[in-house]
């Protein structure tokens, strides 16, 4: 377990900022308790400082997890967000997509969101913007990246992809072995 280097922090923040924008400050500067990002076995954990201090006493091979896993660094140094980060992304998301009940299951099986399933979308969403996907009753289901901007989506046919799938809560079951 160690703090992130500057390069790693930069990669992480860029990725997170794609979803939460300026709200990223709220993750770092919390009023209740100081939180920090820690790297352990290539995984980035968002953990309160008190828990982190407790975790330091656990030997490296024995430490499985602490706080909330935000994702992991690939071998080539890219950062991949995990579905476990959804709680915080949903809380601070800038751009949101709601999908109809008939589109929930396809999305939860790892498919992209097509226009036919699109319920609502935040106005002025640009292209290639990270968005959080909600069901119509505001339950966060996952997140993805928009394929088109909001204005463009209006002219598309119903089978066109609107949001590229990145992670969904179905991964808790599908990737149970590798996720944590």
């Amino acid at each position, binding site marked *: *377990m*160690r*703090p992130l*280097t*500057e390069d790693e*922090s*930069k990669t992480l*923040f*860029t990725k997170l*900022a794609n979803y939460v924008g300026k709200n*990223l*400050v709220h993750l*770092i*500067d919390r009023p209740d308790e*100081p939180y*920090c*990002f*820690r790297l352990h076995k290539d995984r980035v954990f968002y953990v309160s*400082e008190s828990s*982190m*201090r407790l975790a*330091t006493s656990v030997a490296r091979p024995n430490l499985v997890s602490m706080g909330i896993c935000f994702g992991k660094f690939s071998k080539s140094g890219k950062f991949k967000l995990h579905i476990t980060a959804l709680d915080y992304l949903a809380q601070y998301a800038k751009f949101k997509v709601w999908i109809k009940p008939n589109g929930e299951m396809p999305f939860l099986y790892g498919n992209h969101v097509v226009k036919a399933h699109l319920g609502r979308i935040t106005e002025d969403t640009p*292209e290639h913007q990270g968005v959080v996907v909600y069901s119509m009753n505001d339950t966060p289901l996952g997140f993805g990246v928009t394929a088109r*901007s909001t*204005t*463009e989506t209006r*002219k598309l046919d119903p089978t066109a992809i609107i949001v590229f799938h990145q992670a969904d809560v179905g991964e808790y079951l599908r990737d149970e072995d590798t996720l944590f």
Partner: protein
Amino acid sequence: MDVSSILASHAEKYKSITVEKANPLEVDAAYLTVTDPNPIDVDSYDNDLEEHLQSLARDGTQALISSLFQLPINRSDDGPLAQLPAPIAPLPRAKHLPKPKPPTKWEQFAAAKGIQHKKRDKKEWDEERQEWVNRWGRDGKNRQLEEQWITEVPLHADIDHDPRKIARDERKARVAKNQKQQQGNIARAQSSSSAQPQPREERKKDIDRTLSSARVSTASMGRFDKKLEGEKKMRGVKRKFDSNEQGGDSERKNSLALLSKMDSDSRKMRTRPSSGGDETVNVRKAVKFVSKGKGAVAMGKEAASKKKFKSGKRK
């Protein structure tokens, strides 16, 4: 006539030269110092601080001066001089204790082996002359062999065998060796005492750096080079990370600073072309589609070459 009242009034005007306190004042005449061990009188201290301090100072000065007048006095041209006694209060040294000399290499060796130092006299007994002569220096015994008027020569010696020169060379070599060892001792003492880098060490580091950069400067970055015998593996730079338990505040500040830096960077980098608000056509994608992924430049070249070909045909 009764003058006692006049005397009393006179005495009242001038304070007594004897100072009386609950605890007697401690006078150290050698340093002209008086220490008052009495507890502070709270009433007078609170009442009038200035007056309290003045009276304290007056008492102390009075005690000091009256003690000075009890000292033995010498008359001199400049007036009477009191002889100050030895000081009572121990004062700390103004300077550090001198550091012990760093041990020479021989001293270290002797200490490790438990060899006792034997003091060697400068004089040595000369059996022939029946007197004490210097071991070295003026008329030193170490030069006896090269200064005697007749010298033995071995049986089958060379023609140019010069026993005087040999003896002298030997002596000079001994002196040179001793000087070299002395220099070594000085250098060792300096390098151990001060953190200042030695020129030799500096040069060593420089060579190492040059060597390491030369080793990775081949076409294969040194991977397929022939290894020399005894060549050491190259050491990389060890990664260094921040400590895990730095103050949470500093870490937060660092993160926020990084965020604001990234923000300002992205603002500087932003070069959005101001298209006329017509965002229905994604130009980048359209070009990519038409040119089959080759890009605008390739498309332009292709168009130009086609035109040329056509015009050539027409001619």
